[in-house]
Each structure stands twice: as structure tokens, then as C-alpha cells.
């Protein structure tokens, strides 16, 4: 019981990361709830693929990415590896900056001073803490994000207006169609991130999940991701209520948490900041490990935290090296919010590359036997793949056309 509560929490934590915190607030302030439907679609899509990749692991005791190379060959897997590695690597820098920004908001010390401190703490934690303890700590702390849902009520909203905004999936009068579509793609990229899938299935290998854990895994997916989606919509809603009528644009993480401060005072703001800290910190660990998993599984290196670091030297070197590189990149004063938006748009462009092989392996009865995809998994999986393909093709043209969503 305790275990599945925690697994559910880590699914929430995996869903909400810096990309969501930035994109949801930005979208809420400009479009109200007119993009809330994207979150609903994303929750269904990512839940479907997370379940599929965890089921593959339960059946084969190997993570999905591991099987992609043995079933689909090294050439295809290499394309997927390069795409996913680049995007997830960029996200490490964004998440790391997100933790530092949360600390800046709490302490008024500039985030650039926090970046190396956060990186050192991350390094120490991945060195000393076992996998499950790591997940539990940030999973529990991430629960404080629910304060965003409470804030929606405390802002005393005009409910019919919220509902009509959510059920009118067109841009408001002040916005153009290309900008609207650009943020559809941005939200898809922010909410259906491939690293959630890699992390979920590699975590299942490290925790040695077998068929008996199938129910627990499904509960985690079916409760955790929708709760994450609820949080995302709550962030959009509070930004809508506070910023939309005033015409204020969200440009900083401070504006994501500001509505909570307005609704619930200093204490609410503190809780929201703790939530932001936990979510981005957890996501830093998840993105970091995911990049290590991807490359280690492609080349067949030993990986993970079950053995001492010296017995997974190549994996450990990749993870530590990427952390140092991300720290250096963050210290260049590159704007973390801009990097986040670019990272999630690029993430949308590689999404189908990571979905397709999981769908193919999930359908491979020679590998999956009794646990092969059923009709529901295949229908949802195919629809999600189609949506993500359209988003992937439209992402870069829209990025250029709207100049990063600014017009």
C-alpha cells in the first residue's frame, strides 16, 4: 500500500517539471483554459505509453529502450538515442536552473549562485541515496504542489467563465491561430516527455518488478498521471484568473507561483515554492538518469544504482559528466525559461521516434506473449502516435513562424 502511494507520487512528480511550470502559466495567462484539452490528451497519451513500456519491462525484465535495439536494429535505435539524448540533456540544464530559480524566490539570492550548490547536492544525493529513497523524498515533497488546486478555489473564480474557456478550444480575440497552435505543440512537448517513459521502465528494472507488480504499476499510472494533469490545469487556471484580464505576460518562474501567493498569502507561496523545488529537483534526477540509461542501454553497458558506481563506470561517467556540462551551460547566464521552451519544442519533434518502437515492441507477441497490447492500448497508442507525429512536423515551422510564440 505504502509502495504504491509512493509510486503514484513519483508519477505526479514525473509529469510536472520545469517545462510544465513555465508552459502552463504562460498558456494560462495568454489563452485561459482554451488549451486545457491538450493536457487531457497528453495525460491519456503518456499514461498509455508509460503503462506499455512498464508492461514490456515486467514481461521481459528489460527496459523498453534496451529492446528497441535488439528488435529494430542499431541504426534506428541510434537515431532515437541521439534525438532523445539531446532533448533530455537540454532539459537537465533547464530543471537544474528551475531548482535554482525556486531557491532564488525563497531566499532572494541570485539563481546563478545557487546553480553550483544545487549541482553539488544532486551529485551527493545520486552518490549516496538508494533509488527508492530518492523517489520517495521528492515524491512526497511534490505533493505540496496541490496548493495550486486549493488556490483556484481561494481566488473565488467565475466558474461558468472557466468552463466556457475550457470548452472553447480556439484562441481568444487577442491571440492568433499560429500562436495558439505553437502552444498546443509546446504543451504536448512539455507534458508527454520521453524521459518519463525511460525512467518509468528503467526504474521498474532496478526495482526488479515482475508480473505480480502489474496491478501496482497500473494504479500508479492511472492515478499519478491524471493527478499530474489536474495540477497542470490548476496552474493554467490560476494564471488565467490573475494575469489574463490584466494582460500580464508570464516571463519568469516567479509569475507561476505569484497567483498562489495572492490567493493564500505567504504561507501558500512558501508551500508552492517547496512544491516547485521538489518537482524540479526530482525532474533533474529523472532527466539525468534517463540520459544515462538511454546511452548505457544502447551500448549494453552496466547501468543504474543497484551496484556500486565503480561497477557501472561508463554509466556513472555519463551521468556525472552531463551534470557538470549542464551546470556549466546554466552558468553561461543563458535564460533558463527560453531554454525550457526550446527544449520542450524539440522534445515534441522527437516524440514519435520514441513512441513508435515502444508500440511495435508492445505488439510483438514473440516478445510479449500474453502481455502483448490489447485493443485499448493499441487504439490509444496509435492515436497518440498520430497526434505526436503531426505535432512533431508542425513544431519547427511554428517555432519560426511565431518567433517562439511571441506573436
Amino acid at each position: 500500500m505504502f509502495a504504491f502511494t509512493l509510486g503514484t507520487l513519483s508519477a505526479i512528480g514525473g509529469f510536472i517539471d520545469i517545462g510544465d511550470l513555465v508552459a502552463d502559466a504562460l498558456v494560462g495567462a495568454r489563452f485561459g483554459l482554451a488549451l486545457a484539452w491538450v493536457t487531457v490528451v497528453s495525460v491519456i497519451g503518456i499514461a498509455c505509453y508509460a503503462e506499455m513500456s512498464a508492461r514490456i519491462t515486467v514481461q521481459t525484465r528489460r527496459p523498453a529502450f534496451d529492446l528497441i535495439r535488439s528488435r529494430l536494429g542499431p541504426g534506428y535505435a541510434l537515431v532515437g538515442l541521439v534525438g532523445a539524448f539531446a532533448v533530455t540533456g537540454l532539459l537537465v540544464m533547464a530543471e537544474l536552473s528551475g531548482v535554482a530559480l525556486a531557491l532564488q524566490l525563497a531566499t532572494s539570492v541570485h539563481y546563478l549562485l545557487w546553480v553550483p550548490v544545487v549541482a553539488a547536492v544532486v551529485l551527493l544525493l545520486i552518490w549516496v541515496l538508494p533509488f527508492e529513497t530518492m523517489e520517495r523524498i521528492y515524491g512526497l515533497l511534490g505533493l505540496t504542489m496541490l496548493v495550486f488546486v486549493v488556490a483556484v478555489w481561494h481566488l473565488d473564480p467565475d466558474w461558468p467563465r472557466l468552463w466556457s474557456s475550457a470548452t472553447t478550444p480556439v484562441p481568444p480575440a487577442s491571440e492568433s491561430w499560429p500562436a495558439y497552435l505553437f502552444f498546443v505543440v509546446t504543451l504536448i512537448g512539455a507534458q508527454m516527455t520521453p524521459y518519463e517513459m525511460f525512467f518509468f521502465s528503467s526504474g521498474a528494472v532496478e526495482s526488479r518488478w515482475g508480473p505480480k507488480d502489474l496491478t501496482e504499476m497500473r494504479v500508479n499510472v492511472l492515478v499519478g498521471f491524471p493527478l499530474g494533469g489536474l495540477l497542470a490545469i490548476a496552474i493554467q487556471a490560476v494564471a488565467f484568473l490573475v494575469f489574463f484580464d490584466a494582460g500580464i505576460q508570464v516571463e519568469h518562474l516567479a509569475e507561476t507561483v505569484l497567483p498562489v501567493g495572492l490567493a493564500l498569502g505567504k504561507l501558500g507561496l512558501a508551500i508552492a515554492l517547496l512544491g516547485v523545488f521538489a518537482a524540479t529537483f526530482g525532474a533533474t534526477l529523472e532527466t539525468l538518469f534517463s540520459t544515462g540509461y538511454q546511452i548505457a542501454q544502447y551500448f549494453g553497458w552496466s547501468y543504474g544504482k543497484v551496484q556500486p558506481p565503480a561497477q557501472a563506470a561508463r554509466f556513472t561517467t555519463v551521468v556525472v559528466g552531463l551534470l557538470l556540462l549542464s551546470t556549466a551551460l546554466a552558468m553561461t547566464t543563458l535564460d533558463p525559461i527560453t531554454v525550457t521552451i526550446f527544449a520542450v519544442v524539440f522534445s515534441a519533434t522527437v516524440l514519435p521516434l520514441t513512441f513508435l518502437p515502444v508500440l511495435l515492441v508492445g505488439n510483438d507477441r514473440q516478445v510479449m506473449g500474453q502481455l502483448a497490447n490489447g485493443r485499448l492500448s493499441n487504439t490509444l497508442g496509435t492515436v497518440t502516435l498520430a497526434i505526436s507525429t503531426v505535432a512533431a512536423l508542425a513544431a519547427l515551422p511554428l517555432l519560426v513562424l511565431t518567433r517562439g510564440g511571441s506573436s
Partner: protein
Amino acid sequence: MTDHHSVRFTLLDQQVVDADGRRIGRVDDLLCDDPGPGGEPVITHLLSGAEALGDRLGGLTGKLMAAVSARLRTTPDGPSRIPADLVADHADLVHLRVRLADLPDVAGLERWLSAHVISLLPGAGDADQ
């Protein structure tokens, strides 16, 4: 799908684990002896490592991968080989009869990083447990 036994699915690209169950690499390519006219080729060695994989992939990416990997290699000749008779079982993973420590040519980068970088840090554990 038909129930075939092509090496493409049963051997090539599979995960290699040593006698201790430690992941040491993948079957990146295979070495066969020359069967002569009419004979069936016999697999003599498994090739493992990015050098073998790069050679097999070909193209610019493959050449780059092979060149970088060859440059990092400490032993003089070619991609690292594992004699085929050391394979105990390859039903799912490719299990070897020996430990990684008994295969001095395989996973050189792993050993080097372990000995020269990771083991120097406190709490890294023992590379050879």
C-alpha cells in the same frame, strides 16, 4: 511472425552478461570462419564495443563511432572479440561462462574509467566484487 532462428534476432544486438550477471556490452557484430564452397559458416567470435558497431553501421556516423572507439582502445589489434565457445546460453540474454575480469580485451573503457576516475572518488565501491 514466423518462428525463425535468424542470428539477427537471437544473437546480434543482444545484451551480453558475464558469469556474475554483470552487463558488459552487446553483440555488436559476429566473426565467422570461411566455410569454403558449400559449407555452412560457423560463428567463431562475438565482437563487442562501439568500434565493431561503427564498422557494421558504416556511413559517416559509423566511421566516426569506430574511429573514436579505436582511438580509445588500449590494445593494439581490432575490435574486442569474445570467443564463441565462451557463450553458455543465448536464449534471452547472451550469458558468458567467464567473468569480465577474465576477458582483458573487452569493455576497456569501462575498466579504464573505473580504475582511473570513478574508483578514486569516495564511496564508489569496488570494481571487482
